[in-house]
């Protein structure tokens, strides 16, 4: 199984993608399967870092959390843009971080950046810290707490 489908999650994604794109005809399901198997083997050549994602309830919890956060921050940022509140102050934060798995880091980076109001700048692997920029920096520790407690924990659960 591992030899035919070295990256099952990827293959599944590709298959789903193919079927979504082409429609649910039997022919395309066959082709989609073939594409999923063949193309995912390309990744073998690229030798990505091994990932061992644990399928658990943490995934839907994270997704829900992200969705709600995105909604909230959308409103928050829209408010800032439209009304330009005086008290606002933006700034950079150095954030210590335990995560080391690159996939976990990538996911965190995507979440942070996709959420309006926060921006991931870079991860310093040697000093185990990330640099982020926050649009509405009311209290630095609040952000640290938010990220460490809400996201990092869930991500640890999924990836490490």
């Amino acid at each position, binding site marked *: 199984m591992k030899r035919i489908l070295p990256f099952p999650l990827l293959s599944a994604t590709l298959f789903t993608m193919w079927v979504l794109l082409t429609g649910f005809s039997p022919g395309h399901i066959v082709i989609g399967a073939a594409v999923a198997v063949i193309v995912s083997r390309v990744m073998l050549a690229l030798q*990505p870092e091994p990932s061992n994602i644990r399928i658990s309830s943490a995934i839907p919890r994270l997704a829900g959390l992200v969705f709600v956060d995105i909604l909230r921050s959308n409103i928050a940022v829209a408010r800032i843009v439209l009304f330009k509140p005086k008290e606002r102050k933006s700034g950079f934060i150095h954030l210590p971080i335990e995560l080391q798995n*690159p996939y976990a880091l990538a996911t965190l980076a*995507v979440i942070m950046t996709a959420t309006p109001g926060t921006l991931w700048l870079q*991860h310093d692997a040697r000093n185990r810290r990330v640099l982020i920029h926050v649009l509405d920096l009311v209290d630095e520790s609040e952000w640290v707490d938010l990220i460490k407690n809400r996201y990092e924990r869930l991500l640890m659960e999924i990836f490490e």
Partner: protein
Amino acid sequence: MSDARLLILVLALPFLGSILAAFLPTRARNAASFMAGLIGLIASALLLSFYSTLATGQTVRHVAPWLPSLGLDFTLRLSGFTWLFALLVLGIGTLVVLYARYYMSEEDPVPRFFSFLLAFMGSMLGVVLSGNLIQIVFFWEMTSLFSFLLIGYWHHNQSARDGARIALIVTCLGGVCLLVGMLLLGHIAGSYDLDVVLGRGDIVRAHALYLPMLILILIGAFTKSAQFPFQFWLPHAMSAPTPVSAYLHSATMVKAGIFLLILLWPVLAGTQIWYLIVVTIGLATLLVGAWSAIFQHDLKGLLAYSTISHLGLITLLLGLGSPLGLVAAIFHTVNHATFKASLFMAAGIIDHETGTRDLRKLSGLMKFMPITATLAMVAAAAMAGVPLLNGFLSKEMFLAEALESQSGTLLDWALPILATLASMFSVLYSIRFIHQTFFGPPPVDLPHTPHEAPHWMRLPIEILVLACLVVGIIPTLTIGPLLQIAVRSVLGDRTPDYSLAIWHGFNMPLLMSVIALVGGVLLYRRFGGRLNAMTNSPFIGRLKGRRTFETVLAALIDGASALHRMVSTKRLQVQLRILIVVTLAAGSIGFLTYGYSVGNGPTIMLDPIFAVLWILGGASAIGAAVQAKFHRLAALAMVGVAGLSTCISFIWLSAPDLGLTQLLVESITLVLMLLGLRWLPQRLPEFWPGGRTPFNVRLRRGGDILIAVAAGLGAAAIAYAMMTRPEPEGISRFFLEQAYHGGGGTNVVNVILVDFRSFDTLGEITVLAIVALTVFSLLRRFRPAAESVELPVQQKVQNAFDAGREDREHGDTAAHYLLVPRVIMEWMFPIILTCALYFLIRGHDLPGGGFAGGVTASIAILLLYMASGTRSVEARLNIQPVRWISVGLMFAVLTGMAAWLAGYPLLSTYFSYLELPLIGDMPVASALLFDIGVFSVVVGTTALILIALAHQSIRTPRAPKPEKAPDKIPDMEGDT
């Protein structure tokens, strides 16, 4: 009686001999000369066999079709006159061959000499034997060519090279004039056939184009025969080996012009304008030549000017227009050939034996070479017109004709006087030639000790001198019949009565002869001693023909260069401006003719968003134009905005395929530009001295703005006119109707690309392949500018930063920077590839296709390179772009060729919908296979270009930097 076809042999023999000689070994002097001599003899013998035919007054013709549609047949024609002339060419040619055998040194590549000589002989025969005006010109030009090679035979001498070049240019100039003249003559006479033309003299002379035609033909003849003012090339041709001079300036080359004038005399002569031009030129040449000859110190120079003078004499005779003049001209042509050839040969012997031709050094050679001296004296006497020699006879006829001239102009009384004067000069230089060479004290300081030449070398001179004597003493028995045949063939019924007797009683011509002889002797006694001290001929010496020629030529070249610089440019900007302006002008012709009108077809209502889109797009285009010089990145972004507007417009205007493709191309082009930008120099804002942009710069910019606005307005106006017109009933309907039923696809655009017009697509992928290979090979030799070789400043700073911190290693900054993006972009690689396959597969029915798919795939590769770096990617993936291109091209071509198997034309498609169990309807179109080929080529191409560009950054400069050496040599060829 002889077969006319023998003429072919006569003409061909010299050429065959020439080719043969060219292949002889360099030192085969004897073989070459023997063969050449033999050819001369055989050809002469063949010619002699025509005597009986020609004696009856007939003309021999041989016609072979060559270019019938242009009225050009290969015609050989032998009349009495041409027969005599051909004999002269061959006879003297044979003697020259014999002479040259001894004259030419063993060190010289003699076979080549004989090869040229024979070819020249053949060309001369060609001129003489041609029965077609154009054919005459044909061989005429060939004589120019081969004389050029002969004159330049000793091309290690500067003077030989110059002499050859001047002769070639002057005679070829005449040649082209002659060609046009002959064409006009043929046009007037209605045929190029010589016999036809000769029969239509009256028509020709009465024609409106007679004068231009005459002038053109005369220029041809005069340049060849070294008539004033074209005479200057002839003395310079003396740098040729003496046998060549003997041949060219006695019987051939210079006589070609005379030949032509005699040949066409019945057609052209007899008008007032003919008389005025030809007589004047002939007279001028006669005098100028004779006068100049007196003052030459070089034996050959003296003979050269004497030749010019005698040619002038003959021309003058022809110009008179009287039949007797013609007789005299023909007679003198023959005579001059004999004595001049022998004199040249004698001069050659003197040169050969003493090592000099300088009259001032030569002296008293009579003692050393008595036989040669005697021969030379006889020949010189003939040249001077001494009685009992042939020169005397024809000169008497000339003087008689000079007296007879009745044109009613000043020339009538000037001619006899000037003719006598010229004869006197002739005597003078003949005496000088003989006296200074053979008499006087023994010579001192000669390069060689002179002695008599070998017997065989003297033999040709002996024969020629004998001819001078025999003709001079018993003309009626010797030259008489031959001359009669020749004259009759030219004049026909107009042939006059003439007498070749030596004694005509005491008459004016005899008196003039005596005056000339006595005068010449007296003049030599009076002034002969002073001649050696003169460096220049008085009066005429100022007319430096050659210098004038060179000056004119140089002025022409300088003028041309200056003019050329004025009407051309090396600058790209100017060229582009011209291109656009010319296009604008050309494009507006239609509008100026028919007026501009807007059509009345259906239009569509404006979508507000479309207007917004183009406010942005247009502003960005202008912004890009303004910013491109100093803010390249900004300009690039603005071009990107305009590009996006274009993409969205495509989609809005019902062209989803275009939108899709353009979007993909946009991305890849942007990356390409950035890859290139790396190697461009920094641009700093302009600083003009004084702080103001100079006026000329502002003027240029203003002009550019004007042109640009005009171009924009033009494009807009035309586009609007197009769009508002009702659509013509064109071919598009067919494609819409047939795409599915005939082409098996619902995306009509794609069906057009891979089926209806798949040949276009084949060409298109070929272009892609070519460009990729070109880029690749160009970049192999890429050499960046000095300041770009180094790392970009950003990387240097970042590396320094990494090096300066304890907690960092080299490359950490980049690694940290790219960590997250790299992870994401690597995992997107298979996703994008899947997308690429999706575009490929669906293209036939929906927007997409091989090109879109291919570009998508190469963007996947590109992202990988950007995220992970060249070395890292190539350590893992071996992309082998060239192989992709190769396979793709093969796929496309083979798919197209598959149709041949079924008996259909290339690229005919096959499609059907397969009913597969479980799977259902599957479209199977061969066009899809073709599209796969396209896909493959596009992937290979784009990847090759991007990778080749990307590789420049990691190439190692020659200056050793071992730590930066590449880990691995990537294989772009697909061969491990």
